[in-house]
């Protein structure tokens, strides 16, 4: 704890002084707790019924992971990687398109009154459509292949990103825009040299927050109609109550989401040092 001797901060309360090691311990604690509860529950169930499938033992889980990742199935495929590749591809295209379109729309309606008048009310309306309710329509329109899944992610995420980008663009003080004009900027230069660079890092935040919904839409679409994908696999093996596959898959999906979040966070921290402390 910083500040030794008699004049130290309390270790609790809103002014608490935290050392790096204490933070680490506290961060690991909930993970350890979850693992402990699982191990205990699993052991208890297996003591009662050795054939229990609901909470597989560590050994069974490891076995399930091994089979999914390193043993070819009947089609000669390594399921986990094939599923991961298919799902990530859908997610990347859907989310990437949503980010690009969201940024373009938000930027334009943020700076151009005419674009705002023509688009903003519709955008608010559009954003209120529950994307999952569109799923049947998308399947009918675009078939059950890739397109419908990507479009579902796009439709679910793009309006939210666009609205967020619009609000960020509007947050830029009018004085800054005027300042740029007095320094000789043209209107496009105000848009691309004042507004865009300032809302770009906020786009990364918006994408970060959209990761959750994007995965939700992806798995929903995969679970209804697909022949490969992480969501598809979970719903297929559910029929056999194969918790030794479902649990690792859920964990893997979570871990992938965490990695993406981390990558975006690091990009923000290293790429945009000027963004306020709180947003890093």
């Amino acid at each position, binding site marked *: 704890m910083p500040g030794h001797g008699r004049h130290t901060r309390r270790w609790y309360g809103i002014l608490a002084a935290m050392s790096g090691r204490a933070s680490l311990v506290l961060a690991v604690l909930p993970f350890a707790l979850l693992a402990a509860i699982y191990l205990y529950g699993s052991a208890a169930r297996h003591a009662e019924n050795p054939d229990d499938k609901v909470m597989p033992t560590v050994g069974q889980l490891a076995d399930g992971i091994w089979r999914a990742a390193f043993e070819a199935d009947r089609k000669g495929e390594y399921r986990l990687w094939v599923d991961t590749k298919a799902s990530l591809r859908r997610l990347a295209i859907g989310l990437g398109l949503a980010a690009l379109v969201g940024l373009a729309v938000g930027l334009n309606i943020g700076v151009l009154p005419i674009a705002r008048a023509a688009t903003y009310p519709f955008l608010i309306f559009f954003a209120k459509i529950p994307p999952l309710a569109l799923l049947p329509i998308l399947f009918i329109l675009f078939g059950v292949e890739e397109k419908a899944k990507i479009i579902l992610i796009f439709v679910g995420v793009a309006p939210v990103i666009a609205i967020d980008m619009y609000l960020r663009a509007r947050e830029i*003080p*009018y*004085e*800054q825009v*005027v*300042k*740029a*004009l*007095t*320094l*000789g*900027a*043209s209107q*496009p*230069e105000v848009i*691309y*040299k*004042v507004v865009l*660079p*300032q809302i770009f890092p906020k786009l990364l935040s918006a994408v970060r927050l959209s990761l959750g919904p994007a995965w939700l839409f992806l798995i929903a679409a995969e679970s209804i109609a697909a022949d490969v994908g992480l969501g598809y696999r979970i719903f297929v093996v559910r029929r056999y109550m194969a918790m030794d596959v479902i649990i690792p898959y859920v964990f893997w999906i979570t871990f992938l989401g965490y990695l993406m979040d981390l990558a975006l966070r690091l990009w923000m921290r290293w790429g*945009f*040092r*000027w963004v*306020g402390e709180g947003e890093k």
Partner: protein
Amino acid sequence: MSATEPSGPWQLELKQVVQEYPVKGAGWKRVLDSLDLRVPAGELVALVGPSGCGKSTLLRLLLGMELPRTGEVLVDGKHVVGPSRERGIVFQHYSLFPNLTVLDNVTYGLELEEFTLLGKWVRYPRYRRRRKTFRSEAMHALEKMRLAEHAHKYPFELSGGMRQRVAIAQAMIMRPRLLMMDEPFGALDYTTRYDLQLYLLDNFYQTRMTVLFITHDLEEAVFLADRILVLSPYYVTDSGAANGSRFLLDERVPFPHPRVLAIKKDPRFGALLEQICELGLDPSRRQLYRERGPGQSAGGDAS
């Protein structure tokens, strides 16, 4: 430097300018009332007045950020309809570009002047060469502002006074024909403030630009300006109480350039201060003020 009639149009001209803002459920609140003003090129004008009298509002009109309810705002004989390269501004509340370093903030205008959005990439080798020149010019300005060692920091890493100095460098380096400053030295410590006052004067002598600056420091106003304008809502008319601020005083400062500190000891300096001070004052305070005497820089109720 006297207010001689220019051969061309006035650098800055107001004709019966009125500005009002809507009040919720109560019509309009008049802030500026029938302002008339003519400023020839090359004059250094100080605008003083109590807080809330509409000084910043007048600046926004001159910038073209807002248009007047009625009346005309002309710069170089042309109606002001929007911000332009000819009219530089240092805002009351700093408005640096937060995503650029101090140095990049200062070179911002210089780069825009020579390179368009795409031109920068089309003529990239040339841009690289020119950027060196821009940067050394900017560093020179930053040295004057005693900010050289902060050149590579971002605005969030600076104190308020430092940011203000960057904003001044950013505007001055462009040498606009008309430079407007809204309380530019308000947040500065005493020595830095004096340095920058002299820096402003030097720049003014070199470039002969027209300067309009707002300040709450009356001593600063008299020390720097050729001409002092007092904008205030505290006056009475034949038809009753005032509605909106007017120029209650438009006075030449009787000292030659270049200014020296000694003029502050001149009795005319004190007399002018007192005259300005009294006019900008809330009438309810005038009695008190007469009994207790003026403070050195009592710019109305400086908020």
